[in-house]
């Protein structure tokens, strides 16, 4: 694995932690990759440490409150979790949990002729379940903020270790 690939993966991670939007991350990644290819430098030579460069690009001077520190899971949880994150998490849980519960309750009632919650028509439960789960799916899609490479117009995929998968 080349030096340059690791540096850009780190840079992307740092930018994510700073809540930089996905399309901006894609632009930064593409410009940095182009620059390194033309200058022949390594990432650290051209841009300095990934975290510092990311903070500069995100307009963060020093350590700003609210910027997620990538060092240590506790710091992320304590400093990085905002009220918005909690709201998103609760909403996702309600949509997914209630949707699944309604759907399962309705389906079981139909298949095994069981009594449903509050005696609600099982088809209604199935319908509500499908609607809520669809809502959950859309919610996740809407929030997912993909990193798009502006050169190809395609989203960047990552493997389990956080390395960019090469595009076809």
């Amino acid at each position, binding site marked *: 694995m080349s030096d340059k690939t690791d540096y850009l993966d780190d840079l992307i991670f740092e930018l994510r932690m700073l809540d930089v939007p996905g399309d901006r991350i894609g*632009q*930064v990644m*593409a*410009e*940095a*990759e*182009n*620059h*390194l*290819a*033309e*200058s022949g*430098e390594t990432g650290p*030579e*051209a*841009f*300095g440490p990934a975290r*510092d*460069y990311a903070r*500069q*690009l995100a*307009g963060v001077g020093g350590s700003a409150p609210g910027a997620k520190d990538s060092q240590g899971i506790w710091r992320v949880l304590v400093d990085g979790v905002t009220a918005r994150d909690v709201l998103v998490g609760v909403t996702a849980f309600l949509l997914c949990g209630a949707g699944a519960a309604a759907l399962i309750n309705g389906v079981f009632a139909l298949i095994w002729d069981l009594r449903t919650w509050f005696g609600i028509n099982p088809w209604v439960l199935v319908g509500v379940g499908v609607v809520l789960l669809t809502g959950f799916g859309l919610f996740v899609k809407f929030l997912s903020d993909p990193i798009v490479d*502006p*050169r190809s117009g395609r989203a960047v995929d990552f493997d389990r270790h956080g390395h960019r998968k090469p595009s076809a």
Partner: protein
Amino acid sequence: MTEPNWPSSWLKGFLELAVLAVIAEGETYGYEITASLAAAGLGTVKGGTLYPILGRLEEAGHVSTQWRAGESGPGRKYYSMTAAGTRELKARAGTWRRFSTQLDNLMKEHADV
């Protein structure tokens, strides 16, 4: 020709202006801008210094950008001046020249050259 090593505190003050002046000469992209700055005698400007400046200029509306594919190689992000950027450059260049003239008068008798 030796590469100048200007004090970084001086560069900090006007590098953004120099970058704007380079872009005003014609649509260009990141790496090419570092080459132009070096050719203009301003020394080596690292990517880590340049791209945050370009980001600020874009955000301020002084430059506009466009991703365009090259004939060979990947697409690049090209920078060009906006009308607001041209006005800003004109104003700041004027201020700079007045400032440097005053400073130059002060320095004249102390310098060898």
